[in-house]
């Protein structure tokens, strides 16, 4: 998959279609986000890891709104870009999508609902993909058990804000998590459960299921459980899925009855 992809993006650069390609680069035994601007670097482009490239793209566009860039994106990256565009955080006209599908291992790791973007330039979409974990264990808990579960989990929180920082959809410059009216400053762990409820709620109708928040959590709080359940709820209540079409509005924000 990588050689074909390298040819494809090399062509985008050579032809002058884009000024750079945002993708992952193998360097010093690790993989990092990188903006490829020359064809001769493309040999280091890899697909072996996952980083929140959508937020990087948004940062690059803010730096230079006129620049046209390509992005090698997975399903979650594409969904995040679409959600960002809905909220005027990014200009899709200046982005060339270079879609790649996730393999089974990666899709499993993220328990992804949709491990591929709309169009792919290489590889194959997983067919008939259904995520294995349906969070049945959690759903079978009683209300009381759920509270005990979350209390135990959230007591570990050390307020790094990593879940927010790593989230491609958390773009507010003033974050309610830092508002002392809701969450007392400087206390560890933050009071149960407001910090995490605020974050979960703010992502309702926004979360694209990339799993970066859970990956970034130093103490292993299963944040995707909440996100996953809320995504199910949003689908159940409003029939809405995030990251599908830029024309779909987040139903929580619309004024229509449902």
């Amino acid at each position, binding site marked *: 998959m990588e050689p074909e992809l390298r040819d494809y993006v090399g062509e985008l650069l050579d032809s002058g279609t884009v000024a*750079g390609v945002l993708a992952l680069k193998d360097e*010093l035994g690790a993989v*990092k*986000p990188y*903006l490829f601007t020359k064809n001769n670097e493309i040999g280091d482009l890899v697909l072996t*890891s996952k980083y929140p490239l959508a937020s990087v793209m948004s940062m690059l566009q803010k*730096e230079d709104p006129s620049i046209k860039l390509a992005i090698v994106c997975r399903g979650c990256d594409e969904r995040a870009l679409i959600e960002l565009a809905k909220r005027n955080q990014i200009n899709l006209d200046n982005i060339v999508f270079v879609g790649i599908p996730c393999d089974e291992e990666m899709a499993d790791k993220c328990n992804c609902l949709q491990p591929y973007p709309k169009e792919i330039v290489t590889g194959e979409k997983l067919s008939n993909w259904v995520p294995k974990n349906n969070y049945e264990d959690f759903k079978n808990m009683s209300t009381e058990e759920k509270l005990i579960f979350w209390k135990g989990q959230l007591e570990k929180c050390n307020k790094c804000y990593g879940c927010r920082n790593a989230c491609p959809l958390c773009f507010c410059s003033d974050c309610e998590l830092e508002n002392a009216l809701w969450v007392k400053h400087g206390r*560890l762990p933050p009071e149960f459960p407001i910090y995490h409820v605020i974050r979960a709620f703010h992502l309702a109708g926004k979360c694209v299921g990339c799993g970066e928040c859970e990956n970034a959590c130093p103490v292993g709080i299963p944040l995707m459980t909440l996100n996953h359940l809320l995504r199910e709820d949003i689908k159940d209540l409003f029939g809405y899925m995030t990251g599908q079409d830029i024309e779909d509005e987040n139903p929580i924000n619309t004024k229509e009855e449902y």
Partner: protein
Amino acid sequence: MKYDNILTTCPYCGCGCKYYIQVINGVAKGVMPCKEDPVSEGKLCIKGWNVVDFVYSEGRLTKPLIKENGKFREASWDEAYNLIVSKFKKIKEQHGPQAFGLLSSAKTTNEENYLMQKFARSIIVTNNVDHCARLCHASTVAGLAAAFGSGAMTNSIPEFEDADCFLITGSNTTEQHPLIGSRILRAKERGAKIILVDPRLIQLAKFADIHLRQKPGTDVAWLNGLMYVIIKDGLVDEEFVKNRTENYEKLKKEVMNYPPEKVEEITGVPKEDIISAAHIFGNAKTASIIYSMGITQHTTGVDNVKSCANLAMITGNMGKACTGVNPLRGQNNVQGACDLGALPNVFPGYQAVANGEFREKFEKAWKMDDKIPENVGLTVVEMTNEAHAGNIKCLYIMGENPMVSDPDINHVKESLESLDFLVVQDIFLTETAELADVVLPGTSFLEKDGTFTGTDRRVQRVRKAIEPLGESKPDWLIISELASRMGSSAFEYNSPKEIQDEIASLTPLYGGISYERLDDLGYLQWPCLDKDHKGTVFLHKGKFTRGLGCFFPITYKPPAELPDKEYPFTLTTGRILFHFHTGTMTRCVPKLDKEVPTGYVEIHPVDADRLGIKDGEIIKVSTRRGTINIPAYITRKVPEKIVFIPFHFKECAANILTNPALDPIAKIPELKVCACKVESIGE
């Protein structure tokens, strides 16, 4: 547009997390965790996430400053260098090299620490070089070196994940070493047992299987108490004690004086808890002792450390994975600064200055005509005292802030003011730099290359991400240029890589470490003896560095200052998650400042009630050294009769209060215990 991510090592605590700095067109924009990093695994704490903000903070020094008529003016590098060279030469002529003291820095790179001690020993020709490890883990270096032959953390961070039992004492791990704390929590979820020994109800207390809340400064007593139970109940690893250690009988004789009843009397910990903690620890397959400043910052610091070593050895928890005695080092590179000889008694790699062969080796390598003195130099607190007495005339301080970090600040201030000449090299105009005659602008970790050595002896690269701000220069370059102007030809380096090569050639512990290998492997843990050596994950496998592990029988001694009628409270100090040390870096980061904008004193509701103190009220805390006004934080985190103050905040500096009484061997001050008085000043 150019967008890149530069892999570098965090400049805060000793965990040694590597992460990326996101750079757009030469400007650092933020942090991106590195998912392949073995320590952080793509996770960070709040300080790490916001690291870029301090680098660009307004307070950064960008030009040399010279003090004239009590005021600073900007100067050129030439002017600053010339002034320093002429003053240094004059003072050396008049008062001799022993009138100098040099403070190196646990914040700077290994290469810079190496150069600083090289400058002290070869240019000034004195062993008066030390750094803030004196204030944190000097007792570890001394205690563990005596017991095992090596003064460093025995095991590695990733091993914590698989340990069966932790004894955590004097370390608020989830706040001070968040990425180590998170591993402990993960181990707990897997079923590991946690024994916490700490007077305060810290976050870890909720996850501890047993929490012993000892009176501050009674550590030898409870450690002996645990060993008493372990010996009495047959939980000693006889095989290990017989084959790997010496002096056991003497230890046993001493420890037998500490039955749980007596320990309860001294420490305030119920005897049942001592017994069950001893059983948990003694029965664990692999048990790891984790400690930090709560053990070391005492007049009995070395005793405490040796007691921890005793406990690990009688249970055979040494020289294996997931065990050991694990001091967590507070600074990103405090391990490296010690390793590279920024200490008054050793050259790089702990080669003693008292040894003529080593002196000769370094004199030759450094192209010296003079002879390096064989006497051990002065330590941090001794330097201040000698300055006060008029025997030290000149201090050259790099990246340290004794005006906030050292005990009894009023005394420190008088000492620094009585100097003939003070040079401070820093990135900010710190409280210490304010008192300097010349201030040299160094650079932050983002603007230079080098290596840091993390708490588990992990040597990792620091990579330059952006150009130095203004006219500031990397510290290695400043020391080299100054040395060259002092007339040396042994300081001509084009890059830190060349310095590392010189270090490797002179320091067996670092012998196999080179930039090429670090690029390939990501990290190397010393001892790393040669180019083919893979580094050492845990120490003392099969054999202790000193041969046999040595037991030291230790008698309990109370702290230097105990509460009395006039000063009825016990004051203990420490750090908090959101800030770092003297606050020079973290307090100019908006997101951290917002969380905790100023200091506070934690006081128990019962005490607060009795004294009529309300939450948030400014109160007066005083000791025999001084008085501060500070907001009260009423909380059950502290026991009754004990108050806690984080020491980061200069406007209510805990170290105005602390006791400079020293451990007799390690010369570490007793920052963790002193007697104090708490008063309400409101109407």
